[in-house]
């Protein structure tokens, strides 16, 4: 039982980080029909911004995190929207998807070229202590990761439902043409979405890199997991992406321990196939028609 609690908790901790990436993924889809296949690389990159701040500029950890946040907002938010999404979107969703795949490769190879191909140690954000609670070993890092991710997603949800701007962002996602006629600054709302996605990716990056180390290829798994989490939970719901992320984190951990460590990465894919077959709108999603 103690071991089971341990597995569930660390699964939730990892899953909450996947959820950050998945939430950003669904936000981009809703606001601008962008399926961002570079999402994994978006989570990989900010860790290297932090490392550049620390090793090249000699800054401390937190100033480097602040620097990484600013750079991410610029590169993964503003530049991504202006240089990739806006020129490609008029050509349709598929060309844009392919452009994001290319962007993912570019980011990955650039990090490999300019920073290094080896995994880089990343300073932990939380104390590396492990507490014994009722026989279970509980890592402070897991609790910290879970708490920060939940705060970020909860804060985002409050922003979207409890502010005027949040209401405008929802309206933009649900019916942009009418939102515009009602005076909503649709372009600005879409930009906010890209900035929020960049910020979520930065938080995910800073939380996950102390565990997996910072490596140019980290995005491959992360991007896939975020994509699956978004589909499993429901593409048009933030809480869907949250549930999808947590579920995949837990299933991943359970299957590694109780089924087979070799097949653990197949489990999310099996779940994806099952969901597409039996509940294509996702666990919490609602089916939607989209006219193009």
């Amino acid at each position, binding site marked *: 039982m103690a071991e089971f609690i341990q597995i569930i908790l660390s699964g939730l901790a990892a899953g909450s980080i996947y959820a950050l990436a998945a939430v950003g993924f669904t936000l981009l889809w809703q606001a601008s029909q962008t399926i961002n296949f570079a999402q994994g690389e978006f989570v990989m990159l900010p860790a290297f911004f932090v490392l550049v701040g620390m090793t090249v500029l000699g800054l401390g950890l937190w100033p480097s995190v602040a620097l990484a946040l600013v750079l991410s907002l610029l590169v993964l938010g503003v530049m991504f929207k202006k240089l990739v999404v806006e020129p490609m979107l008029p050509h349709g969703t598929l060309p844009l998807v392919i452009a994001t795949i290319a962007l993912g490769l570019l980011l990955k190879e650039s990090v490999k070229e300019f920073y290094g191909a080896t995994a880089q140690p990343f300073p932990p954000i939380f104390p590396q202590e492990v507490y014994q609670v009722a026989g279970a070993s509980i890592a402070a890092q897991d609790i910290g990761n879970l708490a920060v991710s939940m705060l970020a997603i909860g804060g985002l949800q409050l922003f979207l439902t*409890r*502010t*005027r*701007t949040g*209401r*405008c962002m*929802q*309206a933009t996602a*649900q*019916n942009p043409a*009418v*939102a*515009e*006629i*009602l*005076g*909503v*600054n649709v372009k600005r709302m879409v930009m906010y979405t890209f900035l929020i996605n960049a910020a979520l990716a930065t938080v995910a990056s800073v939380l996950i890199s102390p565990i997996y180390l910072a490596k140019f290829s980290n995005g491959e798994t992360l991007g896939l997991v975020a994509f699956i989490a978004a589909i499993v939970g429901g593409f*048009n719901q933030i809480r869907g992406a949250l549930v999808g992320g947590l579920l995949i984190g837990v299933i991943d951990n359970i299957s590694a321990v109780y089924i087979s460590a070799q097949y653990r990465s197949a489990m999310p894919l099996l779940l994806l196939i099952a969901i597409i077959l039996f509940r294509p709108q996702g666990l919490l999603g*609602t089916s939607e028609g989209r006219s193009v």
Partner: protein
Amino acid sequence: MTAPIPSAPVLSVRAMSKQFGGIRAVNNVSFDVHKGEILGLIGPNGSGKSTLFNCILGQLRPTSGHCEIAGRSTDGVRPADLSLMGVGRTFQQLSVFPRMTVLDNVILAGQEHEGTILTRLFGRPDAGLTDKAKQLIEFFRLTPYLQTEAGALSYGQQKLVDAAMAFMAGPQIVLLDEPAGGVNLTMLAHLKERLVTYNREHGTTFVVIEHNMEFVMSLCTRIIVLAQGEIIAEGRPEDIRANPLVIDAYLGG
């Protein structure tokens, strides 16, 4: 119903034409709408009424001619800014935000008329509009659905939400694009009664595009009939009903 007092027209359309390639969808159309009027704009399919509507609302640029709201030209005004000039509208297609509550839908329709980027981010979440929104929701008898997601309502109820949204910014004139389309008879009678009451209580001017003749005839104080992009008749509902040109072009056709 009392006859409107002649004053500066709320809406004035002057010599408006719209050409698509070789086709003249709207041909030199002029008319005025005065305060408190309910004007019906009817015509057979392809008569140009939707094109005319879209030109008035700034969603299409007319080939020639122009349009004034209370004496101010709408040339170059974006659709989004028309509501600032006192123009409300309902949509032919459903225009509610399906995953937002009815209350949030109606608040949204009024909240973007004022405020800065800061008040939008940090100001009161409802922009002080909850009471006004609730009054309009009550007016359209939607209070039981205040916190219901708009997408869960029936089609007719969503049309009522759309109407409530059109009135949220306190417009001088509301343009209704086929309000009766797809609405069942009970709901239609309700919608008509509410629109007439609103018109009587607030003196708001309406322009209605509609296919449903009964609805137009019983709602409107004056009717303009379009055929092939031109006005072929104009007058009171009973006169329009008896006009042989109209019967020929529309009612009989």
